[in-house]
């Protein structure tokens, strides 16, 4: 496994005058599942967008393999980092198969025809999310859980070693949240894909992640394994939440019980 590590170095992010992230340095461990947690408005999504080069830092850099991602070719970067935004737009009447095919864009030249590798990547992605038999169906006639799996298939078809997801489980019921996170973990274990997501549910994050990044109103509160990050003091600092932590009876990971 080559070291495809995304790193923030003295990163400052914001919109105009408003600073959201100030002087943050951290690494997203390669081939692990990392989750960014924190209260609303603390800059979780902003940080993820900076890692995906969707915004330009006000100061500092984001590096991949030691090189500033803003200096890299757009398409070359898209072969290494895929991002699923919070609310992607669905073209009217598009079929699942067509949607997934668009994930191959970074691998296709201006005039290069649809290749065997493209077809295989799409078939593999549809298989991974269990949507093979639905590929002819229209996206807008699917259930919420199926629709989210179709979007996941698109970024899986992109075939990148790094996968960033902005709140991939929002709008889903608990069963489908578990389903999406299991899929991501499967991908992480099978292909060694680095998966980085923004989530709201601390318990689900602790259950599925190898590495947590907890942001608070004042910036980084803690990072590390779930056991290190999910503590009463850290939750108090990040969320102003009084809670008890107990081991999850199923997974033994830390579990939050708000008081």
């Amino acid at each position, binding site marked *: 496994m080559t070291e495809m590590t995304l790193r923030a170095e003295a990163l400052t992010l914001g919109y105009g005058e408003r600073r959201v992230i100030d002087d943050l340095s951290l690494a997203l461990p390669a081939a692990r599942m990392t989750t960014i947690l924190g209260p609303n408005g603390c800059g979780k999504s902003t940080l993820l967008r900076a890692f995906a080069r969707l915004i330009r830092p006000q100061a500092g850099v984001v590096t991949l393999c030691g090189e500033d991602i803003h200096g890299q070719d757009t398409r070359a970067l898209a072969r290494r*980092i895929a991002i699923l935004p919070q609310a992607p737009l*669905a073209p009217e009447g598009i079929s699942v198969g067509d949607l997934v095919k668009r994930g191959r864009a970074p691998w296709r030249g*201006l005039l290069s025809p649809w290749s065997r590798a493209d077809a295989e990547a799409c078939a593999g992605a549809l298989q991974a999310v269990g949507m093979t038999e639905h590929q002819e169906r229209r996206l807008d006639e699917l259930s919420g859980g199926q629709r989210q799996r179709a979007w996941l298939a698109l970024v899986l078809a992109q075939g990148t070693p790094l996968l960033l997801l902005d709140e991939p489980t929002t709008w889903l019921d608990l069963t489908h949240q578990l389903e999406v996170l299991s899929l991501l973990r499967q991908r992480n274990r099978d292909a060694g894909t680095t998966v980085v997501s923004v989530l709201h549910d601390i318990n689900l994050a602790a259950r599925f992640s190898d590495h947590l990044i907890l942001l608070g109103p004042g910036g980084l509160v803690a990072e590390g394994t779930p056991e290190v990050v999910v503590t009463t003091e850290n939750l108090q600092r990040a969320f102003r939440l009084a809670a008890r932590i107990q081991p999850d009876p199923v997974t033994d990971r830390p579990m939050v019980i708000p008081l």
Partner: protein
Amino acid sequence: MKRVIVLVALLVVATAASLLIGDVNLGLGALWQGVWGGDGPAALTIRVIRAPRVAVALGAGAALGLSGATLQTLLRNPLAAPDIMGFTSGAGLAILVAITVGLTLPLPLVSAAGGLVAAILVVALAHRPGRATPAATVVLVGLGIGFTTTAIGTFLMTRLPSAGATEAQRWLTGSLAARDWGHACQIWGIGAVLALLLALQVRGLGLLELGNDLAAGLGLRVERTRWMLAATAVALSAAGVAVAGPVPFVALMAGPLGTRMTGAQRPGTRLTSAAAAGAGVMLLADLVARAGIPGLQLPIGVMTGALGAPYLLWRLSREIERGEL
């Protein structure tokens, strides 16, 4: 596939009808002679008068259709057509000004310049730094620019001698009268180049449909692609205006009509059906305008206006229902 064949058949029938029907109605025999170089009066009517007019209608309609469908997809708004947003009236006004002051530049260039100026004005007025511009704002600002250019056009016409004013009036309504093979070659030549340019950008358009963030994540240079697509669309509408005048509503209707007829979903096929639908609407509107009322030749713009205005109202009411306006 079946529906594609229906659309193509419709175009062929409309073309044949446009060649045969007019002040003098001709038979299929004359059509045969006209195409294969016969030199009777009927053959000449077809070859010299009607065929170039039909070719211009098809070319200009296709260009307007492509332009409308591109902008509608790009701005994700079914109202975002060059005729609604004032681009075609800007192109038309530029040509009127050129004719008034006796400028001898090629009309397609003048028209493209006018369309671009209108587009830049719309973007500049609608844009607020640091905030995303809602498509509805662009459309409304565009309407304002359209009214302004129309007002300037009307003012210019009052300064023209009456013969020139009549001609200018006809031109500003949108007309296909007295088009020759030169016009046909012009729109087909320029149209082909621009359509090719657009074809090279179709994949980018397909990614932009997924939202700017996902498109960027898929390796697209979002801003550059958006500007290139918009410029190509403006140039296409200007090319149509240069030979047919600012014919209203064809660009607005072609995209949704084409998609409805063929059921196309991918951006490439959607644009192609928009081109076909635009060509069809233009041709049929012209046919009805010049032969619908015996003895009265209306400019095509009157016809597309009569067709398009109710469509626009219907579209607006749907947008209001969906809460987009």
